[in-house]
């Protein structure tokens, strides 16, 4: 789910920034939320919080958007 965070941080942009990555990430996140029950969402969020720091930071360094 941190794909949308990265998209909002501009991490996927390279040549001409556009809405494409944000739109896709927002759509994915919305679809995921609708598909999951509240219990699933909580479990998913717990997993997300446990790994997001690790993976999100790595992704930000890799994509040069950690500023």
């Amino acid at each position, binding site marked *: 789910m941190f794909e949308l965070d990265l998209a909002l941080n*501009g*991490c996927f942009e390279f*040549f001409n920034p556009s809405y494409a990555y*944000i739109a896709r990430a927002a759509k*994915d996140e*919305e679809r995921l939320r609708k598909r999951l029950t509240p219990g699933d969402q909580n479990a998913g969020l717990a*997993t997300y919080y446990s790994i997001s720091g690790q993976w999100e930071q790595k992704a930000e360094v890799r994509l*040069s958007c950690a*500023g």
Partner: protein
Amino acid sequence: MKARPVLLIAVALGALLALFALMRHHEARAKHESMASDARASNTTSVSPATSADTRSPTDDPFPSAPTRDLVDRDAGAAAQLWQARAKRAAFARQVKEFGPEVARLMQLAPDEAWDPLVERAKDGDIAAATAAMLLATTCMATTPGPKGPPPVMSFAERFYPTLSDPWKAFLNRIDENGRAEHDERMKHCEGVGNAIDFAMLMIDQFLRPENPDVAIEMAADNRDSAQAIADLRELLAASPSARGELLLGDRLLESNDAAEQAEGLAMLERLAKTDAEAASRLAYCVASSCGAFRGDPASARRWLEHAARPGRSICDLDARQPARCARRSLRSLGVGVVRARSRPERMLRVL
């Protein structure tokens, strides 16, 4: 524009990007090996590549804040403005990382100012400059205005993302509007930017020569005859070891009908995947679903899927219902298709 020139440009750009990625891969690997060697020699803890100097932007300009989800909900216009400033800064940092500071600086100029210095550098063998110039040429080529149709009856966000909430639609629409205005302004400065087809031919002639070992490896791997591809790759690797060549050979071996070759390919990809994100991604895909004759085991794909998630995509193997489909989608979005991409030099030469 006719289909053939468009195809030529697309293939040339793809080939240039692939070759550029290859060269970057070589540099990164050499640097990684050199750092590991230095660390061993000095008996100190090795430096993580993630914190090495080449991942930092040489500029000291701070990154503007990114918009929060809350701001998007409250004020789409302000959020779009904030995002665009942030995205430009992040794109520049990425260009610096991928192309180097000088080419990145040229990419910030108006197209008609950037063109000549980029072409000059490209002719001197700078493949980053060649790739940047190609991007510029194709962008300018696409600016010829067509007949103006009636105004759209609904916004693009309403049309393509109808299920998103209204604030997010408004946010996307504002980004789209602002982006179009900036793009139109930039494209007023395309005078003097060269013809993309001529430039593509020039760059193909300069960079994609069969005697280039990187190109030879790509051409060998592109052979539909697997036995021949495997034999050629083995021969090329014996003469000139290459991580990219090993990845391509491992991939072809894994897809083989022969059990021994499959085992050899799997071992090769597993070894490479420990340090090579592309190998990890390819392995994740094959283990999560299948590749050629190789049948994967989705239950054991998690380790490689996590590697595949590093660039920031969702770790969707948590979707236990459709792990393989989810992995494919995720990997496609990572560009893992590069291993079997259509932009191979041989295909390009066939087109020519």
